[in-house]
């Protein structure tokens, strides 16, 4: 008598996956809703901006084609070309990134690779304080410290009272922690085994950092760069105070390209500055000037979208080179 061939035990495993787990479903639902909130936000923003922008574009004084191609922004004179404001935003953001990326990345590499744990634990939050300083203080810092500095170094005939360079450098300082903290997190997350393997092969710390760790942390570093660039484009108060309140109207061909259009030492109003000043100004509500801020906001939204798509493509290409 063998127990095995008499007892009819059904040994086919019941699929555990089919077992209903309501807790799990609930959690999944909740998490999905969290993700959906971001979509809802975008929908809300597009709806709100779009609705009011429509009012703006429907006005007979505004021509959509002129809006997207014009190089003069002067609502009082009926000129609604958006490029001067885009120019201001781009100039400030580029300068900010040029300042912030080397400082942020190098600081992150130092904290992650070279510094002891205590030093890292101290300096990382210290740098994060930079994000917390009120932007009004940054604006006045740009005006009372950065601009005089630039004027004394480069001469007050070269550098204007309001200039894009001061605003850009100060915004760059503001966004350094966004790069350094996120990059440092990513660099620290690279497993030590990779580093140790490289050291075992005789690589120097520099080679390990740049050729092993940074490529391994590329995704996180890219995220930091994206967040920083987005913040630079969206920064309001610093550019309002330090870059001036006059859009840099230009005419292609007539104005010197490097002497005027791309000159970082003259004033140029950014899109965010324009929105902030007009929204809090004394203009009557529902005038064309007021409604224009929604159109500018929409433009900014799509511009950030374009920049993000571009940076994703670049990061993908970069990553492919390394993996």
């Amino acid at each position, binding site marked *: 008598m063998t127990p095995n061939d008499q007892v009819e035990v059904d040994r086919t495993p019941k699929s555990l996956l089919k077992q209903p787990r309501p807790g799990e479903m609930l959690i999944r639902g909740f998490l999905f809703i969290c993700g959906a909130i971001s979509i809802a936000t975008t929908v809300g923003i597009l709806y709100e901006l779009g609705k009011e922008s429509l009012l703006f574009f429907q006005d007979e004084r505004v021509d959509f084609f002129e809006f997207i191609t014009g190089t003069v922004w002067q609502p009082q004179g009926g000129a609604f070309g958006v490029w001067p404001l885009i120019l201001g935003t781009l100039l400030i953001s580029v300068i900010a990134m040029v300042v912030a990326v080397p400082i942020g990345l190098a600081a992150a590499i130092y904290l992650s690779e070279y510094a002891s744990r205590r030093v890292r634990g101290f300096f990382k939050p210290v740098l994060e304080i930079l994000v917390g300083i009120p932007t009004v203080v940054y604006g006045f810092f740009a005006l009372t410290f950065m601009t005089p500095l630039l004027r004394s170094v480069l001469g007050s005939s070269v550098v204007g009272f309001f200039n894009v360079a001061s605003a850009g450098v100060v915004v760059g300082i503001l966004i350094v922690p966004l790069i350094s903290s996120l990059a440092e997190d990513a660099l620290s997350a690279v497993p030590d085994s990779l580093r140790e393997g490289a050291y075992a092969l005789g690589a120097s710390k520099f080679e390990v950092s740049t050729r092993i760790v940074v490529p391994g942390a590329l995704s996180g570093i890219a995220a930091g760069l994206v967040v920083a660039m987005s913040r630079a484009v969206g920064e309001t108060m610093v550019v309002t105070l330090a870059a001036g309140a006059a859009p840099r109207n230009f005419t292609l061909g007539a104005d010197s390209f490097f002497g005027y259009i791309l000159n970082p030492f003259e004033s140029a109003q950014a899109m965010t500055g324009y929105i902030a000043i007009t929204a809090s100004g004394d203009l009557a509500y529902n005038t064309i000037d007021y409604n224009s801020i929604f159109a500018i906001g929409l433009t*900014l939204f799509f511009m950030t979208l374009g920049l993000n798509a571009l940076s994703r493509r670049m990061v993908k290409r970069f990553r492919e080179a390394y993996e």
Partner: protein
Amino acid sequence: MSLEAPPRPDQGLFPTDQEYDSLLGRRNRKAQFFKVFCLLMLTIAVVALATLLYTIVNDSFGLVAVVNQNDPDDVVASLGHDPETTTLNDLSYDELVGLLEANVSSGVGRRLERDQRFYEDRLVFESDEVWDEICSSNEPPAGCTRGPRNTADVFSLVQERVIVPDVIASYPLAQSIVNPEAFEQEVAAGFEAGRFGDYTADQASIEWRAWFNTTFLLAPASATPEIAGIRTAILGSVWLVVITVIFAVPVGVGAAIYLVEFAKPSRFNDFVQTNINNLAGVPSIIYGMLGLAILVRVLEPFTSGAIFTTGPAPSDNGRTVLSAGITLGLLTLPVVIISSQEALKAVPDSLRQAGLALGATRWQTVRSQILPVAMPGVLTGTILAVARAVGETAPLILVGAASFITADPTGPFSKFTALPIQIFQWTSFPQEEFRNIAAAASIALLILLLVLNAFAVILRNRYSRRIP
């Protein structure tokens, strides 16, 4: 057997000693240069921070020129004492109250008395009938039940309202320490230029003032910079941060977990990812407009608390701390999501596979294995989000933060103001003293930020460890 180096093939396979030295030297120099460069960049960042802090602190302390609207010696003399031997400190309680009675308007006096009496047995500003009437009403003022004031309190009242020190000029900290005489000259020149109105040069005295002090932290807002404080603003900022974190962190981490752990790669999820990256770049003022349109107007029953009570709503309209907190939460949500995503992605797959291999569900694995390892990154996102929420101005103004308010927020449905708004308001006033209190308020904001972030930083340091 000699101990000489074994014979080596001549050239080709291995570098010679000299070549080896020079190559290694070059690599070492490169490595050294890189290290110095990185350290230099870190130093630049820290120096920038130090410079910013210096500009803030420079305006928060320093010499001031003060003119007392009523000179203490004259006041003492008017009571019959000899100013040489008696000072304001030596006056009796009755004399001090008498001074208040003579110099303060009846409206202010009555209000002071209703806050707290001066004497147990008699009233100074109010008549007995009116006092009995208000004390027996439904809402008696605090003075009906509180004990009488003490000398120190009345003394400071006399200082504030009888002597009335008026700051007419201030000087930055650095110059006050290095070159205080220049300030005296500046003040003298100001008097000659007639800048100080009716005051004369002999009335002014130069003294040291710390604009950032405990009175400043505890006093409510005022139109006079000497007595204005930021209590209401601090409470408003704290409420805002609390609501922001309660909203943004769970939702952000939840979204990140969904996108990294549960969502299958698809065009839709790609779209969601791009969307989130994009939202990180939308300027804060647009979030303000969104908050105004949706939270303040459309969701007014919710944000004014009307649907939570059967009686009248706690707030007249949707311009409450709750609306502003959620708006800031939406503003900081993308950063929390992105940093949490990166933290989750950095967790090695081996942990996930181990969990699944043991039969745990996805969520169980995430909760007990993945999330703790990803905690530092999540906390970084939280810290950056809190910093952003504490420092924002433009969206708050749109969502209805008051620019001048003295009543403290008592709940999520209160009117409110925030520190950055006060700072922004004060920097645009023409009077120089407002810049000093704006700087002091900035110090308060930074301390608040440090306190709020300390918790997360400690947690982060505790959780962070290298993956072997």
